[in-house]
């Protein structure tokens, strides 16, 4: 331990850094020592841990259906002051144009009808066709096949512990 008097100088926000794994081993030891001796710090740790856990458990929020497809396919005429050099006001194919002072700033990402059509046709595929690997069953398959060519315990042990991948 350092020569500092116990409990001085260690800022309270070290508790957040402690939970986030952002402390050195020495600092971690200091925090743990402080926690052992301070009910107040223990209580603050509980608060911060709870807030952190609640945030991390929040679900991923999706944009409205078709948001990105519209972005990719949609193009708006540019405001005169904003148009980059080299881009003419082309006859651009649009899906549903939304015009507002705010959205007029939304400059066409593509420079022509042909480009927009190519991208829309080639890259904008319905989301339902995209592949979502079923990591749980792939993990089973890997573990099972590994375990016949290798020590079975170390190969099989992880099967139930690979979490976090959406089915």
């Amino acid at each position, binding site marked *: 331990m350092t020569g500092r008097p116990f409990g001085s100088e260690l800022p309270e926000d070290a508790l957040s850094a402690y939970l*986030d*794994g952002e402390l050195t081993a020495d600092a971690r030891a200091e925090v743990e020592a402080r926690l052992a001796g301070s009910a107040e710090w223990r209580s603050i740790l509980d608060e911060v841990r709870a807030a952190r856990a609640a945030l991390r458990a929040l679900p*991923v929020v999706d944009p409205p259906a078709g948001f990105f497809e519209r972005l990719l396919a949609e193009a708006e005429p540019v405001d005169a002051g904003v148009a*980059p*050099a*080299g*881009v003419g006001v082309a006859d651009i194919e649009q899906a549903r144009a939304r015009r507002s002072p705010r959205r007029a700033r939304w400059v066409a990402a*593509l*420079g*022509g009808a*042909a*480009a927009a059509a*190519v*991208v829309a046709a*080639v*890259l904008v*595929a319905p*989301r339902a*066709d*995209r*592949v*979502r*690997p079923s*990591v*749980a*069953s*792939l*993990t*089973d*398959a*890997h*573990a*099972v*096949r*590994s*375990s*016949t*060519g*290798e*020590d*079975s*315990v*170390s*190969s*099989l*042990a*992880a*099967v*139930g*512990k*690979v979490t*976090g*991948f*959406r089915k």
Partner: protein
Amino acid sequence: MSRRVSRIGVVQLALFVSLGGAVLLFPAPHAEANDNAAALLARARTAASTHDFVGVVRIRWHTPKGTQVADVPVSSDQGLVEVGLGSEKVVGHGLDRWAGADGAATLWHDAGPDQLPKPGTKWDLSTTAGPAVVGRPTTVVVARDHDGNVRARLYVDQSTGLLLRREVLDRHGHAVHDVSFVALSAVDNPAPGQAPPTTPRAHRERTHDQLAHVPSGITAPSAAGDGFRLVGRYRQGAGVVQLFYSDGLFNVSVFEQRGELDWEALPVGGTDTTVSDHRTLSYETAAGTVMFWNFDGAVYTCISDAPPDAVTGLVTTFADASDHSDAIHDVIKFVLGPFSWG
């Protein structure tokens, strides 16, 4: 020698021999420490099903956010190995495996991979007397790459040949994956009056999934990365093929199917890296590195406990091997090229 040779043990050994596994060596009849590292590893493969025990295994793996830990109970009784609890449980008996949701609902049975490469080809193996693990003296098999860096340590129980601990190290010698017994008891000494174990009831079977050849359209190089050889091809169902690679010490499964990857469905927190001009997203998990990539109309998922740099090397082989069609990208570049946004 273990106190009994189970019927299953004999069947397993017979299969090893018939698959050309004689080179893996029949374990010496006396339970002496064997200085031949490869023989030690071979013996470790069958030790869990030829010795009874009860224990807990701790998995530690390194992620960008720190080290994660998980404890898994393990037991072995007359050749029936059970790993995990409840819906996470996996059971092994001979070449049968039961795994899946709802408590071991799928029976897997394959003949085992083709002959594995000799570990000594790629790895410099040596043995040394090791520290005690769960209070039991060990012999450590140390695997060094050709630069002399230690990349794995396998701690084998001197008495039974059980693999007690397996450490995988990155290029700088830091452990990235570590599976170790932290409790082990009742070795070859089961509780009296215990009922014989029964195998689980399976709702589904995955047998005859081994493929002699991969379907057309699937890229399957027979050698990949540094010293990995393709030793198993399996149908994983729904157009997915499992390619099983081994370098004698580590295994890599590459799951491949036609299609476009839904990157957005993958969890936040993966490491985004470019390998041979292709984007990959990788995660460190209890099972090792899980890596996703997508090119030329195929989606790849790779799972391995090999060191991450070895996995990346393998991905490079796939990138270079595929009949890569850049037509779509050429069109977009042509179309967007003339417009400069300053």
